[in-house]
């Protein structure tokens, strides 16, 4: 009798173990918003992560729509705004998009602030390209010689593109109701090169990402509204739109948050693209076409804004954070074979949150990513900050590629090779909606994982392989 009962309960326990992962999720995030000093209600939009004061530490750059732009630095356990110069704060303009990269090849990143004071078409105030010169911020667009090609069209997102792979970044400006722009410094002058590069199309531009999508150079995917998406193949620095051929044009959906993600853990970047109240896409490349493999939980239409693909809980599998506006946020874990498994959120749900942007960075340098969410649009709300609740014993590895000019190699691809996976991550050039993540590939480590190597594919397509001897560190890889 005793043995029978024992066997019976053993079966119950076995079945319970099978089922529990599907029905129970402990609260994933911890709300650490209190770490933000001075966090008033405001209208915030895009967030970037860059080192604004050239001290080797990253800050969250948070845009303000009629509110000051912020640079939140982690100091003494708090996120503190360190921006105090008017040209950076720029409270009179309405900033929504932001991305940082080294456009002048001095080894430090300039910051592109996209201002938009109208929904579509012609706007009053142009964008800013902020450079730090002798501890003072200046707007490169305010220099007389750079005023010829100001962007006076409403826009949304921006991304950095090293189109020739030579470390000379240009800025793709996703405009709305006017031509796309592509700014580069040429003969010491900022020029819009969009016409020469086949980029000057008029659309309802929303989101843009750049990286090794199709070629060994920086390609571009732009998610648009009221028109087809663009998939811009880099042909020696000039672009060709192949969205239709690759089946990612999604012409009657309205694009929003977009991210590059190695959905199948196979060592290549695929595309996650959210559509405003439409089907969210998980595009994986197969036989020269992208196939949407998002399941019905993942693709369910929502009021989507930013999408982030990152390993928040350091388990070696990426999560996808879907930031909705005035609708609960969602979180999915990408399991093997591209299976999206929903993680029910309690903390971070923000059912009444007007989410407008979000970014990740290990801002406190403890090996776990922080998620900063900006909110606003139709209701002033404070920022929120989250971190996954995880076992401190989990391990991580962070790879920070630096290009030959000493700047973050945005657009490079890092691939972790181990006995269990081949997992690529982009060094973010601009992603989500209006946003840009930290320029670091952050990997959590799986159970029983070993034999680590890391491959860095630079923006010119060349590769370096590094053997990893120990975990729980940030490794800086310098381009030769």
């Amino acid at each position: 009798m005793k043995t029978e009962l024992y066997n019976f309960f053993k079966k119950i326990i076995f079945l319970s173990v099978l089922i529990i992962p599907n029905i129970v999720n402990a609260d994933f995030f911890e709300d650490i918003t209190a770490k933000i000093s001075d966090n008033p209600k405001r209208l915030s939009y895009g967030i970037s992560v860059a080192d604004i004061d050239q001290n080797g530490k990253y800050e969250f750059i948070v845009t303000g729509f009629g509110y000051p732009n912020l640079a939140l630095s982690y100091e003494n356990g708090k996120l503190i705004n360190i921006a105090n110069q008017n040209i950076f704060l720029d409270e009179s303009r309405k900033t929504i998009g932001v991305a940082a990269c080294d456009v002048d090849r001095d080894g430090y990143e300039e910051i592109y602030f996209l201002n938009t004071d109208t929904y579509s078409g012609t706007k009053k105030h142009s964008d800013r390209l902020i450079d730090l010169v002798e501890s003072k911020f200046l707007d490169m667009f305010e220099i007389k010689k750079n005023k010829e090609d100001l962007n006076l069209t409403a826009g949304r997102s921006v991304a950095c593109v090293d189109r020739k792979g030579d470390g000379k970044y240009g800025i793709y400006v996703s405009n709305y109701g006017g031509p796309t722009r592509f700014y580069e410094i040429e003969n010491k002058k900022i020029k819009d090169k969009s016409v020469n590069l086949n980029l000057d199309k008029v659309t309802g531009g929303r989101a843009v990402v750049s990286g090794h999508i199709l070629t060994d150079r920086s390609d571009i995917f732009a998610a648009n509204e009221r028109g087809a998406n663009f998939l811009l193949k880099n042909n020696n620095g000039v672009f060709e739109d192949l969205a239709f051929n690759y089946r990612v044009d999604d012409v009657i959906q309205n694009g929003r948050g977009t991210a590059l993600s190695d959905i199948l853990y196979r060592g290549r970047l695929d595309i996650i693209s959210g559509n405003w109240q439409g089907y969210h896409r998980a595009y994986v490349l197969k036989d020269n076409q992208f196939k949407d493999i998002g399941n019905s939980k993942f693709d369910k239409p929502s009021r989507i804004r930013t999408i982030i693909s990152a390993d928040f809980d350091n388990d070696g599998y990426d999560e996808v954070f879907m930031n909705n506006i005035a609708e609960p946020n969602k979180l999915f874990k990408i399991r093997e074979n591209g299976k999206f498994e929903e993680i029910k959120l309690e903390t971070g749900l923000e059912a009444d949150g007007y989410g407008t942007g979000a970014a990740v960075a290990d801002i406190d340098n403890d090996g776990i990513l922080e998620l900063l969410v900006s909110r606003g649009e139709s209701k002033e709300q404070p920022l929120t900050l989250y971190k996954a609740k995880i076992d401190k014993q989990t391990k991580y590895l962070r790879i920070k590629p630096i290009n030959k000019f000493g700047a973050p190699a945005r657009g490079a691809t890092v691939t972790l090779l181990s006995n269990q996976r081949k997992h690529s991550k982009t060094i973010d050039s601009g992603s989500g909606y209006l946003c840009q993540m930290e320029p670091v590939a952050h990997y959590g480590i799986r159970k029983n994982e070993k034999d680590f190597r890391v491959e860095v594919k630079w923006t010119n397509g060349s590769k370096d392989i590094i053997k990893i001897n120990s975990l729980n560190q940030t490794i800086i890889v310098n381009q030769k």
Partner: protein
Amino acid sequence: MKGNLLKFLVIFFVLIQFDSISEEKNYHKELIADWSRIFPDQNRNAGGPMFFKYIIDKEITYKDFKEFNKLYCAVSGSLIDPNAEPDFIYAKESKTGEKICGSYYKCCIPCSCDIMKYSEVEKMKHKFLDGLKEFYVFTIRNPCNKKDFPNRVNKNYFCDGENINDDQVYSLNDKLVIGLLHEGENCKKNDIDFVNSHQVTGRFCELRNNTPLENLKTGMGDIFIKLAR
């Protein structure tokens, strides 16, 4: 008792596991993803024939065929919400002149009137992955020789000169197939009474069908009618 409990738990767990891995085909999502392949110039006015051709050319089961055909309006070419309910209607069968009753998925109320008045149904056979099936399709006469071919409809979609372009649309007995009549069968008297007395297919359609063409403002206006009359 213990054995039954165990069986129940096993079934319960298996069902939940199955639910978590099973994934139903999303026909609506597929049509949206392929929109630019169905309508290369984005003009879907009166685009039912383009949808039908796209669907019939797929290697699918009969169930898939029926589900896809619930999601566009044969009259307007609009996509239809996956939760939309059809109207019960009748249309004349070309060959016999008899009324065939069935369900029509529409994007707007006037479309039900237009399809009943301006289209005819034909019996069609097609081999699907699960075998040869027979069903009724809505057809209109070959519009390609019309002098007043509506200019808001892309004639190149449908026509190769004065002939129907079989590469881009489907024709049956020189008629253009515009959509599927679901569950079509010969009408019974009470079916006809139901349609004729229904507030939409009866009263509203009588009013619409007696309105001069130039006064039609609802539905597709006069576009489909000009194409089909």
